[in-house]
């Protein structure tokens, strides 16, 4: 079996490997794997907090009228739910997995700038803590929704430090995000092991590359928007005040110029995880690797041209342009879905929890994607924009799309990270509760939206026929919430007593499966020769295997010579 020695400079200094006290180690570490784990734990902590807020929201909405909280408290809770979930969980958790796995997948010993990587994480943590600290200030946290449209978010209408902490915290998190993006993009471009050409890096690394490029272009506008809002609130700047020449529509443009790419920042890494999981558990190569890469770039590029579809109802945007651009984004997304299904086609499918989560992703994301096409059409958007239809749609896309993919990734990579398997029994319990609970929560919301129930209301009238659907949705939300418990238990137990995992527990394809579980601090003792986008497969089956790659070029679009 052909192997190449790593060039010696890539090996870290010997003292680096000396074991250290756990806590001090994690605070001072610049190891991409440990920083990745810090990201994942932090993001999950925020996810749990955001989930508790979501259950409070659904508890209040289970019945018409106000039961448990004032309207203002409700507004703060749903605003913080959105903020925590979108800015601090969804956009960050896959950065954690990217941190851990991208260097492994491209055969690098670490990221390009390990210290900058540590700084990105700590910036993220403290930015998040600033946002969360707003729960403890006078007046409580921000109550202007995660979109913070001025003039509502201006100090004339929303006093208190909560909104300012929201602005500062998110700006700080944004800085960490931009630094992390520069780091990961540089890593993918420059740190690949010899033989690992761009068209041999795994799809997850591709989606991380595009995601981080999106962050580089989308986060600066957000920072600008936040800075102007801060000036508006505290120093009387007049960007958004129409009485002195400002425009509230301007905020919507800048915010959504960030906000729509943000959707893809959240879900593209999910697409990447799915593209890793489905081939392994179907025992076939990814169908149309290059098409998936180009589709990822297509989605990334188009995502900057569709922002105003969030603004159709303003009456202040060019409808046909933003409509057709939004429609077009369905094409590369459709290519991805068909390629995933084609990967399963004539495969040999094993239904591990990871694969079930991937299939759950496909089922849920399909509904989210299809309803997105409805919303790209202004006549339909006029009817359902800002109703529960949109709430259902983006939960199917973001929570459904990201969360199922993320769990697929976690059940898939947990053995690599910890050296132990997660329990399949608890995992399947987790999956089925999540899948049933999720659909029970959000499918009724499509119908509620069509019936005219606006989003972000603390209260609704009992005579509009919305009671039954709301109650169903709330019960579903609690089932979804409870589904997290078997997962937490599973992680807790498996870390201690889980079945030990070998280096390549699933017959994987990409390079991370050729090292030990967990990998040594410098990642690889030796690396196989890279002949295709499936080095671990080639290593297992030998370069001469009919399905393996032999030449210097990938054999795409080979029909599987035999």
């Amino acid at each position, binding site marked *: 079996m052909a192997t190449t020695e790593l060039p010696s400079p890539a090996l870290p200094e010997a003292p680096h490997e000396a074991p250290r006290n756990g806590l001090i180690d994690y605070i001072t570490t610049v190891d991409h794997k440990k920083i990745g784990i810090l990201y994942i734990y932090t993001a999950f902590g925020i996810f749990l907090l955001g989930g508790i807020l979501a259950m409070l929201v659904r508890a209040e909405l289970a019945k018409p009228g106000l039961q448990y909280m004032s309207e203002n408290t409700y507004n703060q809770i749903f605003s913080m739910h959105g903020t925590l979930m979108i800015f601090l969980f969804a956009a960050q958790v896959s950065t954690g997995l990217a941190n851990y796995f991208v260097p492994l997948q491209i055969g690098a010993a670490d990221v390009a700038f390990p210290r900058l990587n540590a700084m990105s994480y700590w910036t993220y943590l403290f930015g998040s803590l600033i946002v969360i600290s707003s729960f403890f200030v006078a007046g409580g946290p921000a109550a202007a929704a995660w979109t913070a*449209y*001025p*003039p*509502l978010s201006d100090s004339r*209408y*929303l006093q208190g430090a909560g909104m300012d902490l929201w602005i500062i915290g998110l700006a700080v998190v944004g800085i960490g995000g931009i630094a992390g993006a520069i780091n990961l993009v540089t890593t993918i471009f420059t740190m690949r092991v010899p033989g690992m050409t761009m068209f041999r890096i795994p799809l997850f690394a591709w989606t991380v590359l595009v995601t981080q490029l999106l962050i580089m272009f989308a986060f600066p506008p957000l920072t600008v928007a936040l800075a102007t809002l801060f000036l508006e609130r505290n120093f009387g700047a007049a960007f958004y005040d129409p009485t002195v020449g*400002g425009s*509230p*529509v301007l905020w919507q443009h800048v915010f959504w110029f960030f906000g729509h790419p943000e959707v893809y920042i959240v879900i593209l890494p999910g697409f990447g995880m799915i593209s890793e999981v489905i081939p392994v558990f179907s*025992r076939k*190569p990814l169908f*149309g*690797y290059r098409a998936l890469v180009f589709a990822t770039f297509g989605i990334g590029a188009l995502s900057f041209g569709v922002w105003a579809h969030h603004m159709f109802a303003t*009456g202040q945007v060019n409808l046909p342009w933003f*409509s057709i651009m939004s*429609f077009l984004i369905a*094409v590369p997304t*459709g*290519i991805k879905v*068909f*390629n995933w299904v*084609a990967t*399963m086609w*004539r*495969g*040999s*499918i*094993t239904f591990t929890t990871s694969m079930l989560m991937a299939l759950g992703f496909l*089922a849920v994301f399909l*509904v989210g994607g*299809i309803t997105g*096409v409805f919303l*790209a059409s*202004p*006549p*339909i958007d*006029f*009817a359902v924009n*800002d*109703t529960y239809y949109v709430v259902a749609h983006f939960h199917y896309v973001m929570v459904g799309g990201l969360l199922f993919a993320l769990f697929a990734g976690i059940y898939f990579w947990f053995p690599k990270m910890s050296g132990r398997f997660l329990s399949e029994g608890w995992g399947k319990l987790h999956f089925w509760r999540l899948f049933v609970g999720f659909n029970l929560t959000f499918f009724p919301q499509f*119908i509620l939206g*069509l*019936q*005219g129930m*606006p989003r972000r209301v*603390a209260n*609704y*009238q009992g005579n*509009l*026929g919305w*009671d*039954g659907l709301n*109650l*169903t949705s709330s019960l579903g939300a609690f089932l979804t919430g409870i589904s997290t418990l078997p997962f937490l238990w599973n992680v807790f137990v498996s870390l201690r007593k889980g079945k030990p995992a070998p280096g390549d527990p699933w017959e994987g394809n990409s390079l991370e499966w050729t090292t030990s579980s967990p990998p040594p601090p410098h990642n690889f003792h030796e690396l196989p020769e890279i002949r295709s986008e499936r080095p671990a497969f080639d290593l297992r*089956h030998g370069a001469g295997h*009919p*399905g393996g790659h032999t030449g210097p070029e*990938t054999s795409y*679009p080979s029909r*599987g010579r035999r």
Partner: protein
Amino acid sequence: MNGWFACPAPVKGPGRRDVPTVLVAGTPIGTERDDPVSSGAAMGYSPYRGCRPTDPRKEATLPLSLPPPRAPGARPRTAATAARRTVALALALPLAGCAPESVTSQGDAAHFAYDFFLWAAAVVWCTVTGLMVWSMIRYRRRNDELPKQIHGSNKLELTWTLIPFALVLVLFGVTLNAQSKILHRAKDPAATIQVTAFQWSWQFNYQGSRAQVIGQPGRPPTMVVPVGVPVRIRLVSADVVHSFYVPRTLFKRQAIPGTVNQFDLTFDRVGIFHGQCTQFCGVAHADMRFDVKVVSSSEFQSWLETTSRASGGNGT
């Protein structure tokens, strides 16, 4: 798998049977109970239930409609009836997410677009889900033999690039067509109403008259409009961004401070329709409701005169 069967379920929710059934003139009142098969038809309970047209004149224009509701408590008498009802229900399932029937001519255009999209969506959903479920059943792992390693197929991938591309172009055409109807503004609207959104209610001023209606958060105002003629809405906001939304017009528009948004609504039937702010606007956003009362032209004129006198008396 994704709850496309969810539409009839809410009818069985707690308290549904006690909900007042008549909200709109001409709504057929169903009182069916404990007959799961008929729950599709029972959606006629509320105008927002939506899947079934409530105006018999409109029935033919919708691509699919359920049979009219049967007499209370009746059971399917013949196998043919039962079969017909089962088929109707089965056809209604993909339409679980269909929009409420519109009450404006502009809304009809949106409704047509929605139905068109829904059918396209149903075809796509069934195709992909079908392929997925088939793979899950047919290609599950049976032995250790490695399946044929297929890396891709240009022909197939081109197919599933071009077909969705063509499909979205068709959908875009439908969109443009509906959009021009919805946003068309009459040269000479029968009435022009200045709608001012404020935290947290609405003010309606009738141009060419002194009539005005001002609401309060707990007391939703009523906007009275004539039936059958285009009514121009001039939408403004006094403070933050709001959104003017009457669900059964299938239309909304943001009220943005510093901006005047104009559009026409042509109601095609009389009745009272619920409206609400849909852009989050602060503490009492949920209470920012109003009603639209559509009346005959003569009734509208007399209402306008009366209200105008009353408003004038208040020194407007």
